């Protein structure tokens, strides 16, 4: 089963720029389906990026973030070839993670 996480991290002179796209329905719990029933909430709660054993970025998501969320940020202290770990947990307790090489 393919990962839900796509990540691209490029190391620059000073900072590493990270982009990620995560596949997730991100149902807010406020939307009704065509039969008029509320679609129950199903969304990522926490996304974490780790490098060198430290957490370099944490996002606390919830019902306000839309489907298949895209994220972009930069951080210092990494170089090409290092590992970057991405992981998420949702409100149903499901999770996924991926380790990518910084380019």
């Amino acid at each position: 089963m393919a990962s839900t996480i796509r990540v691209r991290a490029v190391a620059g002179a000073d900072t590493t720029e990270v982009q990620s796209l995560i596949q997730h329905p991100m149902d807010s719990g406020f939307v009704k389906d065509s039969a008029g029933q509320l679609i129950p909430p199903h969304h990522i709660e926490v996304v974490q990026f780790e490098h060198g054993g430290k957490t370099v970025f944490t996002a606390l998501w919830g019902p306000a973030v839309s489907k298949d969320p895209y994220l972009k940020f930069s951080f210092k202290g990494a170089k090409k070839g290092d590992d970057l770990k991405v992981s998420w947990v949702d409100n149903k307790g499901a999770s996924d993670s991926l380790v990518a090489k910084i380019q």
Partner: protein
Amino acid sequence: MLRKLLLVGALALGAAHSALAADKVDPKAEFKAFRDYFVGRFPKVPLDDFVNGPYSMDAGLRKQWKAIEEFPPYDFAVDKGKEMFAKPFANGKTYGDCFPDKGVGIRQNYPYFDAKSGQVITLELALNQCREANGEKPLDYVKDDMAALTAYMAFTSRGKRFDIKISDDPRALAAYRKGEEYFYTRRGQLNFSCASCHVQSAGNHIRTEVLAPALGIMAAMPIYRSEWGSMGTISRRLVTCNSQVRAAPLKPQDELYRDVEYFLTYMGNGLPVSGPGARP
């Protein structure tokens, strides 16, 4: 005397005009006129850029689109389509067996007029015909699975120039003509034709959306629309366009829909496949 001459002249012109309209369908001439219209109206837009629809019309939107394209929302559909395309049917055959070049890099040739069946074959129709010929149930034309397949096929054809053929077969010309008529006919309670928005108002706003020019409008299909939060096939877009002007939609892949796809894609000949696309 002059008045009589003028009257006769006007009658003759009138007769000639209606004769032209009734008899000769000249796709080549109309193709040139169509292209010249858009190039003339938007002289700053490079020809190939028309396939980017609203982004060729609005700089602010374009910037946002470039950012989205770094990690495009249709990526998941392309991957899913690739998986689906490779998976054999129950009888062991694959989609590739139904198409020229194993179905890779062929988007730019669709739709085409099939002389044997006497109808326009679109990519979506061809995919379902392939399924049914191999004992599989057809896919829903407006849902994600069909969109995933056409997204993958478009992706493998990116950059290839559209090359829709209209032979001298009178049935092909008739299909072109019917598609053209559909495109320019006002419909729905709002009384809009496709041309009302995509010709007359191309580049303008309709509520918060920027209207794409009709030139090359098929090139980016299928599209991931942020409004839908999902992928949409050509069938889906035609159906929703109809209901948006309060016209009861036809069935997906209705003959008229295939004819208008034939007409519109032909009008975009020479422009590159840019699909799958991302739209607001």
